């Protein structure tokens, strides 16, 4: 197992005094894909949103425990800086509709510093290539972002997140709004990205977790039930609750 990049340590997260996740501890290995699966309401979205401090942007939320990025507790750091190191891609593609493709990808660069035009151009091309979108948009990079299809928009959002050069990329059900072909492209992309980044993916699709993830965590009712190499979890899960869920006996 690769060394740990992101460590969740006894994390409990509240929405107004109600705990959405309780005492969760996981170590996500670097340069690998970790999936989080579980039935609706199990806390997987809450967990992932705690990993880049998006959870606290909702009113009346509270967090106990630690999340360590390379041994630094992200809750002791400036949240804005944390989110530059830990990026996120959302379930429904959300490009900035008022901006062009170029401006979308370069948003992080333009707003967080003032790199030269050449540097920005280079980053934009690189990010779009990493997101396997460059060939499809290189002729129309100033076109509005909304002119792209759903799957392309999602890849645009991935490129936008990558342009900020994060260390970790979080994906909250990245394919659930997409058709099967677009989904397949994103899954291939995920497999390529893990050579450079650490990825954590929430998915409700178990086959997808089995296809792309090296490690899988199963959550239920806010608790972590099991975490381990995906093959093991799907062939021979240790917990009977895990087995009941993945074989469709409940949820």
């Amino acid at each position: 197992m690769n060394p740990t990049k992101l460590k969740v340590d006894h994390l409990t997260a509240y929405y107004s005094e109600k705990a959405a996740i309780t005492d969760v501890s996981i170590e996500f290995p670097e340069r690998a894909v970790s999936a989080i699966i579980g039935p609706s309401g199990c806390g997987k979205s809450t967990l992932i949103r705690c990993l880049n401090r998006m959870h606290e942007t909702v009113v009346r939320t509270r967090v106990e425990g630690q999340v360590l990025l390379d041994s630094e507790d992200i809750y002791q750091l400036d949240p804005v800086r944390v989110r530059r190191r830990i990026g996120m891609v959302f379930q429904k593609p959300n490009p900035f509709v008022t901006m062009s493709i170029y401006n979308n990808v370069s948003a992080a660069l333009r707003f967080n510093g003032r790199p030269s035009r050449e540097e920005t151009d280079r980053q934009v091309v690189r990010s779009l290539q990493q997101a396997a979108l460059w060939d499809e948009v290189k002729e129309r990079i100033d076109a509005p972002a909304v002119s792209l299809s759903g799957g392309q928009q999602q890849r645009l959002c991935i490129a936008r997140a990558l342009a900020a050069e994060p260390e970790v990329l979080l994906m909250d059900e990245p394919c659930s709004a997409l058709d099967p072909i677009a989904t397949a492209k994103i899954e291939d992309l995920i497999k390529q990205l893990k050579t450079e980044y650490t990825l954590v993916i929430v998915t409700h699709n178990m086959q997808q977790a089995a296809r792309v993830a090296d490690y899988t965590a199963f959550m239920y009712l806010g608790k972590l039930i099991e975490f381990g190499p995906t093959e093991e979890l799907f062939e021979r899960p240790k917990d009977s609750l895990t087995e009941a869920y993945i074989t469709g006996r409940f949820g």
Partner: protein
Amino acid sequence: MRKFDRYARRKLLSRIIAVLTGLCVIAVLYPLVSIVYESFALGGAVLFQAQFLTTQAPNGCSVIACQTVGIGPAVQGTLIVVGLAAGISVPVGVLAAIFASEYRVRGLGRAVSFTADVLTGVPSIIMGAFIYGYFVIYDPQIALSFYTGALALSAIMIPIVVRTTEEALRVVPNSVREAAMALGISKWKATLRIVLVASLPGVATGVLLAVMRAAGEAAPLLFTLGYSTLWFTSLSHPGANLPILIYTFALSEYSNQVKVAWGATLFLLILILVVNVVSRLMIHRMRVRMGGI
């Protein structure tokens, strides 16, 4: 035979309702149409005289000399005072709206919204009287001036700008804010440069509404900007303006001045119409270029 009766009854009822609603439409449109028509009829001739916009009454207005035909100073005054008021109310209103909707500080945002709502209903003359009263006590020198006039108009414009900006911001989907935040863009930058930009058409419409309202209000200017027939001299003096000119000349005993009042009315109507149309076109183009929020 029974079914037939029911059917016939329904048709009759439909027809009656159609006629009634048609009559209501006429009732609603009649005042508008008649105002426009009367203005044209009574002021049209005056409008097309060459000196309409350029002359002013000579100093020391004698009975004869006061039969002036020009409204030039009034137009200038209106443009200045409305421009000044806009310069105050747009930044203040927009920032207040941003505060109310984006930064949830313990119900303060709701207080701002609520206040703005209430203020839109306050009669405008009270605004004028309040500003006048305040300055009469604290700084009587400029109690009647462009400054106080602009303040009075701002008091009317700000609530409108706040409410419409708030609505425009609310329409921007939360996914935009989340996306910006997830990229590590600080909240104020995201709000000003992404969210606000995305809501610009809505904000522009709100500003337009506020400006049009302010341009036509006479009551708040009554005690603040006051009455004058002179071209603009200084911001701390009272000045000419269209609404007050119309008010004054309409009550005059000189038929010429009454005609000028009608001409000014028509001019104001046309001005508002033109500004409206042009602004809406520009806003529409803005929307199209942004790809449709």
